[in-house]
């Protein structure tokens, strides 16, 4: 009897909770995250690798930070050595793949920092995925990868 009660009041709700909150299909991780040093009021950029070990593709739809406006951008060469930067509305992260945000390429731009970024410190950043939901990670402040 006690057994059954336990099942009903404890195990079932737990199972239910697990089903609704777990990211169902993707296994996303963010590695080697670093962010450039910068003064308060200035801009910076965050770089990392997104690894999707799952069997389903996902889409990075936005980024957020508590200390700046975070936007997804890509630096692109126009022509004759002219570099420009374009906003990205989303970034595909196919199944079993690695997507790299790196210097001179895709980056999370931090705009109008409310605090300085000093080498050696770390800041939290959140990526929002279409299926996987939020991924929170720490980026280390340093000037080189």
């Amino acid at each position, binding site marked *: 009897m006690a057994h059954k009660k336990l099942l009903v009041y404890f195990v079932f709700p737990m199972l239910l909770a697990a089903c609704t909150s777990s990211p169902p299909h993707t296994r996303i991780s963010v590695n080697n995250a670093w962010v450039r040093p910068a003064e308060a009021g200035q801009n910076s*950029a965050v770089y990392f690798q997104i690894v999707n070990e799952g069997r389903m593709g996902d889409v990075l739809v936005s980024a957020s930070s508590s200390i700046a406006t975070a936007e997804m951008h890509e*630096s692109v060469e126009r022509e004759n*050595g002219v570099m420009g*930067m374009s*906003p990205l509305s989303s970034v595909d992260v196919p199944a079993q793949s690695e997507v790299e945000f790196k210097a001179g390429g895709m980056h999370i*731009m931090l*705009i109008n920092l409310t605090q300085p970024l000093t080498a050696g410190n770390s800041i939290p950043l959140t990526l929002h995925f279409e299926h996987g939901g939020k991924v929170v990670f720490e980026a280390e402040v340093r*000037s*080189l990868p």
Partner: protein
Amino acid sequence: MPGKMRLLFWLGLALLLAACQPYKFKGTEYPEGISAEDFTLTMTEGRPFRLSDQRGKIVLMFFGFTSCPDVCPTTLAEAKRIMEGLGDETENVRFVFITVDPERDTPEQLGQYVSNFHSENIGLTGTPEELQTVFDAYGIYAAKVPLEGSAAGYTMEHTARVFLVDQDGRLRLSYAFGTPDEDILQDVQYLLR
């Protein structure tokens, strides 16, 4: 042992020829004898900077802006590595960062930005007209481009090459964005020899 002698002879000759090969620059070379167009701009603490006053030193020039989050800091981080790689010879090289965004880059901001990468870096600014004259002389494209829906407002699309002016004031080399810093360092060290 004539066979062995002959082998030694050819081996020696090959080695000698290899040693005589002229140094191949890593950067894009300019035709010989082009003197770098002289200019005077303003350093961030207000003093003038004239290019022709830098004779005897190698000047590395880059055009950028301080709210640039990616391309400019990448180049400045490379410049820092070049300066560090030069060791005692750092004093014979100047790294100059010329703003393409005088509208937003105040001298204070520019000074702080460039010296955060290396204390010896020089930030230069001027009136839009003064700057445009320099851009024209070095073939620099710089244009304001609005960023749709971005908190950054606008970005500057700009030529992102590094230019090298040698100790005699000649425009010698330029480097594409993303050139490994060791390549530039090697050229600079060769020219300092």
